[in-house]
């Protein structure tokens, strides 16, 4: 990486920071409970729209993990989820009617909130359908991980997106609020992921899984990216670049070892493929607010009409993080 390149990236980072401030004018504070947040608090940042049915379990899951406070952006919900969130004692809620797409899919809004509230904290940035799993998560709270990362001078922690799906058609079982979505969508693809390196940002670009297998077999290059770096010891100079796939400064993207070893990493269980999915997909097709002209949703909708079963003979049934570790999807690294 030459001097010119790194200067370009620096400018880009600055530009995104300015953009975050600019886009913050679209945000309106509904409830601010941030003054109660202590200096060591673990924070979750998320954007949501009409996720009422998912939110109860989402909040419960991360509270149990040891998250102290949630910073949420509500993007024009109509299902009462904003009121629900505003009533939660550990939620700071912002609302916006702004365009999801033009805030670079929520990244600008969250960058702003992270600059404002995240500085010096461990920040976990996840969608309401993403459930973070890390080594020893069944016996050690999230704080154990972040303390260990602090002690090891590690600033960012990767967790690949793992698409979960039910056996049989996606909409065959209805998901009810408060229910663990993993109990319905409990299958995944264990070994069909491809990795390339992004030469500019230094992050890995991972694709594959059931979405590539079923929805994108003929145009694999368009399959969604699965690499994510959701857990970061935030500094106000950082920005997420494209979703939580990569950040700047680029050193934060080096969450992998290049000399044969394994760094510690986790998984985001992605429970998009539930009974709620079809409706979402159809709505997004008319709103056209999602990535790459909603190409992804277009492909899903086509697939859904034909045969919405993602399950195959070689699907793995989810048990726990140790299973994911053995399968080589995540790693304990040198955390023992």
């Amino acid at each position, binding site marked *: 990486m030459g001097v010119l390149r790194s200067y370009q990236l620096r400018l880009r980072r600055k530009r995104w920071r300015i953009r975050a401030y600019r886009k913050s004018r679209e945000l309106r504070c509904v409830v601010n409970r941030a003054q109660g947040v202590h200096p060591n608090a673990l924070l979750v940042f998320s954007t949501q729209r009409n996720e009422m049915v998912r939110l109860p379990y989402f909040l419960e899951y991360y509270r149990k993990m040891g998250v102290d406070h949630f910073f949420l952006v509500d993007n024009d919900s109509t299902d009462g989820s904003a009121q629900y969130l505003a009533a939660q004692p550990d939620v700071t809620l912002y609302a916006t009617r702004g365009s999801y797409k033009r805030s670079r899919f929520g990244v600008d809004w969250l960058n702003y909130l992270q600059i404002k509230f995240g500085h010096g904290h461990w920040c976990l940035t996840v969608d309401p359908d993403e459930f973070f799993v890390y080594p020893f998560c069944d016996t050690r709270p999230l704080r154990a991980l972040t303390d260990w990362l602090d002690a090891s001078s590690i600033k960012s922690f990767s967790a690949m997106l793992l698409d979960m799906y039910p056996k049989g058609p996606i909409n065959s079982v209805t998901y009810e609020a408060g229910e663990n979505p993993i109990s319905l969508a409990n299958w995944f693809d264990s070994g069909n992921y491809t990795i390339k390196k992004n030469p500019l940002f230094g992050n890995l670009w991972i694709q594959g899984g059931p979405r590539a297998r079923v929805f994108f077999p003929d145009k694999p290059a368009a399959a969604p990216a699965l690499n994510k770096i959701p857990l970061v010891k935030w500094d106000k100079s950082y920005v997420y670049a494209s979703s939580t796939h990569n950040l700047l400064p680029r050193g934060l993207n080096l969450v992998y070892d290049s*000399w044969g070893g*394994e760094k510690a990493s986790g998984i985001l269980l992605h429970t998009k493929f539930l009974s709620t999915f079809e409706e979402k997909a159809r709505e997004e097709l008319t709103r056209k607010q999602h990535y790459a002209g909603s190409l992804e949703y277009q492909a899903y909708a086509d697939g859904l009409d034909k045969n919405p079963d993602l399950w195959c003979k070689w699907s793995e049934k989810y048990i726990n993080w140790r299973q994911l570790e053995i399968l080589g999807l995540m790693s304990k690294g040198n955390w023992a």
Partner: protein
Amino acid sequence: MTVGIVMLAHSDLDRVEQIARHWVAGGCPVVIHLDKKVPKDAVAAFRDSLSDVADIRLSKRHKCEWGMWGLVAATQDASELMLSEFPQVRHVFLSSGACVPLRPVQELVDYLDANPDTDFIESATTSEVSWAVDGLEKERFTLRFPFSWRTQRRLFDRYVEFQRKLGIKRKVPAGLTPHIGSQWWCLTRQTLSAILQDPLRASYDRYFRRVWIPDESYFQTLARISSRKIQSRSLTLSKFDFQGKPHIFYDDHLQLLRRSDCFVARKIWPRADRLFDAFLRTPESALKQAEPQPSKIDRLFSRATDRRTRGRPGLSMQSRFPNESWENGLTAHAYTVLEGFDDLFEDFQPWLQRQVTSTVHGHLFAKDRAEFAGGETTYRGGLSDNAVLRDYNPHAFLKNLMWNTRGQHQCFFMGPGDVMDDIHWELVKDANANLFVISGAWLIQHFRSNQNFADIRADAALRQKLEREHLTALKSPFVKATHKVWTMAEFLEAPVENLRIVLDALEPGLGQGLTDTPKLTDLTGFGTFVRTLKNQGMHPYLLGDFDEGYDQPRQNAETRKPYLVR
């Protein structure tokens, strides 16, 4: 007689208090050193909360930074206080705020009573140890280190470099042989007081003040002078990872720690409530006088280091993506690639699958689809047979297949009719690959096809070029694969013998017992076909020195070993 506990603490004072109370309840007086960085009001609150305990003292506070002298100064002052305040103390045990006793205090007291004049201090000369990270083993004693490694890294490195260039070497004080070892020791009053009251202490202190990480060498070196009986090991279980920072224990290590029979362990995560509860509230009595057995914990942590530094061979994932030639194995396990066999023999794939326990796929890199064993459309791990998906990243396809099937030998066919221009180098460079090639055998497909001759000629020329590239790669210096190449002519000299070589490589001993042989393809007219091809200007030289009169399958093999080829 009892044991005095010196505790160096800097944070999580509630835990420090809890541990200190535990020691005192077991009859051990405690001297606590709090880091200078702890805020004054926190110290005052701490002092207050402990005011009801008689046998706890707080010693003079020093600024303790890792690798610097402050830790030794703190230990010295605290030890002096211990020796002067508590005359009943015979052994002084150095511990930290993250050290938790695993066995009842009385067992430690008994153990030390049984070894009344033994000093437990890990102490070895620099040439004898390999644990020191950073390659400054000898130089920690011969250079000066006034700068902090943690906070002034650049100055630290520059100053080391500077001294090396000037050839500056400090003299070790006369009579001292530098020793290093774990910071956590347990010394007798005699030894400790001999160190602290040594008439030369001022000059020793002056020297060690500029030694790097003196807390791992000061007492370790001086104990060698004054001790009567040294056991060079620490009673504190403390493990370090590959970067030299201590491993941390959590609730899920409870059983492991219990079974270790160590007296004290560090570091315990301050929020590991279950561990604190288990060991401080209701310490379970192990067998009296049991010797510490940390080997299980050693294994756990050495596996962790191994995973971090070497990783799992053949695995590519989000946190392991090795640079070229650092893969430590391109794929996860051994596999076999057969080229040309299915052209030369009829129904070779099902035949081979009958002979071996390995999985026999078809052409995994065929143009239209990946021909998985059993004709499956998806395979282990969710690999799709879709050719576009596969060719999007064929290296990942191969790696994934071998990772997903680890433990089961895989076997597949290949030939220049496949999409092999990208993948064949990968196979050649992979030490796990076993390649068996019958060069030129693909021509049989043309021979049996119903194409126009001009098309055959063009296609054969193309395939010959591809196969030549592959064979050239197999002669390059980058070859790691095991391989054997026959021309088709060579192979036909003794087809069954050669087949045995392949089978023996797949499963040792299998070739010898071979009775059921595959049927050789009918080559009647092949000689004429080759001659025509040659006459039209396409020379199939990869066939080998092919007998142009070869218009019938060779009968000699049959006459020699009639049961072999039917």
